[in-house]
């Protein structure tokens, strides 16, 4: 057989490509449900890690079903808010096969809208029964996208988990692999200021905000740290109503310490907004 004439060559390549395409299409369709289930369990375990319900390796060992079950048991409510902070829709948290979450690709869409100056219409908020609220972040690292979840109570972070697609192993990948880095967020506070809600990841000595409003960047991973800093600040900005709502709460709730304070005597306490309120009231 002459395998070198043009007709045969064209026919051969056509057949090969069609066969390969068909095989891949079938395999992709068959495996899709499994892959989506894995991704869902992965995202949920990341949120639960941020909410302090366990560590990532533990969730991986549990298997998908138990992760989903644990989520259903621990989530209080999940809903979507708009840029003004009003609830626009709710997300299903049970049964296991109907749980609605925000995957990184969905976060990417929000990120793109926000980065190009637009206003995202829907932002997911996850409230857990332990009182922590989890919000996602998504941004650009050095080599590819980075994303993660932050949990907070009031304006104080209580946990974090970050993931990435292709940050440098051993350096930028520490945002995911180094629990010590994620633990730095615990008990740090966002700064609710006129300009917006802020938090800072910067190298030691280069912090512009207060000590409690930032953490140290990862040595050797400048670009990843910078990307994470930008991502966190962008998303905190999107979720501003969530924080300003807290900051504008009645002063008794906000600064319990004000109770019983003599605002005239204690200068420090007098700087607190609630004391200022009290002073003006008086």
């Amino acid at each position, binding site marked *: 057989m002459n*395998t070198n004439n043009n007709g045969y*060559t064209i026919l*051969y390549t056509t057949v*090969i490509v069609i066969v*390969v395409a068909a095989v891949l299409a079938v395999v992709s369709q068959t495996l899709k449900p499994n892959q989506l289930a*894995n991704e869902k*369990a992965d995202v949920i375990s990341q949120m639960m890690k941020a909410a302090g319900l366990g560590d990532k390796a533990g969730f*991986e060992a549990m298997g998908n079903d138990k992760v989903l079950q644990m989520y259903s048991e621990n989530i209080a409510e999940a809903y979507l808010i708009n840029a003004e902070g009003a609830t626009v829709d709710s997300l299903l948290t049970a049964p296991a096969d109907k749980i609605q979450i925000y995957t990184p690709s969905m976060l990417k869409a929000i990120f793109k809208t926000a980065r190009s100056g637009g206003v995202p219409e829907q932002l997911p908020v996850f409230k857990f029964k332990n009182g922590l609220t989890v919000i996602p972040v998504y941004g650009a690292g050095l080599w590819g996208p980075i994303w993660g979840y932050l949990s907070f109570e009031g304006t104080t972070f209580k946990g974090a988990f970050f993931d990435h697609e292709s940050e440098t*192993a051993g*350096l930028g990948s520490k945002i995911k692999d180094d629990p010590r880095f994620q633990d730095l967020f615990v008990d740090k506070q966002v700064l609710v200021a006129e300009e917006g809600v802020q938090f800072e990841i910067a190298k030691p000595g280069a912090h512009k905000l207060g000590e409690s409003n930032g953490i140290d960047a990862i040595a050797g991973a400048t670009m990843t740290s910078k990307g994470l800093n930008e991502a966190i600040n962008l998303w905190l900005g999107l979720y501003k109503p969530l924080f300003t709502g807290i900051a504008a709460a009645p002063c008794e709730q906000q600064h319990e310490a004000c109770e019983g304070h003599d605002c005239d005597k204690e200068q420090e306490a007098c700087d607190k907004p609630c004391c200022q309120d009290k002073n003006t009231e008086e």
Partner: protein
Amino acid sequence: MNAKIKETILNPIFKGNPITVLVLGICSSLAVTVTLKGALVMTLSVIAVCGLSSLVLSILRNTIPGRVRIIVQLVVVAMMVILVDQLLKSFEATYAIDRQLSVYIGLIITNCIVMGRIEAFALGNKPWPSFLDGIANGAGYGMILLVVAFFRELLGSGTLFGVDILGRFGYVTNNLVILPPFALILLGCIVWVQRSIQKDLQEK
């Protein structure tokens, strides 16, 4: 087992190792050897891709038009790699590792060992020996990968397969070991050891 088959299997493991003797597949051996777990999954993936691609192309070898044979090889290899990637993504046990290896599974397509063995062996031999040749070369590659990963994980993170080994003795992890250049230094040392054992590899 006849001598030729035995030679086909054993040669790539040491005497004709794809990494240390043929110097193929260097790039990925620098990239995925930070942890043993990653290196192991990569090894198994490359063995599967190498073996199956060689098998399929050896079956097709007499029908492939000479002028487009590289393209046909590439299509088959790419299909195998995508299959492996899709499979890793769909099992609970391997999903996390696939995420960790990220682009490097896809980059097996560009691994010179796969194409190299197809060009050099599978297109001129029967399916069964070709299949074994692919598997053996994948294993030869993987062996070096695991050796490099062993030292890099131990010295770079103080762990083996994620289990803390040196950390408990107060070992301070070395960041240089984690960076790709150190893998190249290690590879150089392995080549050095092999050449001092196998004198016929030394240039006069």
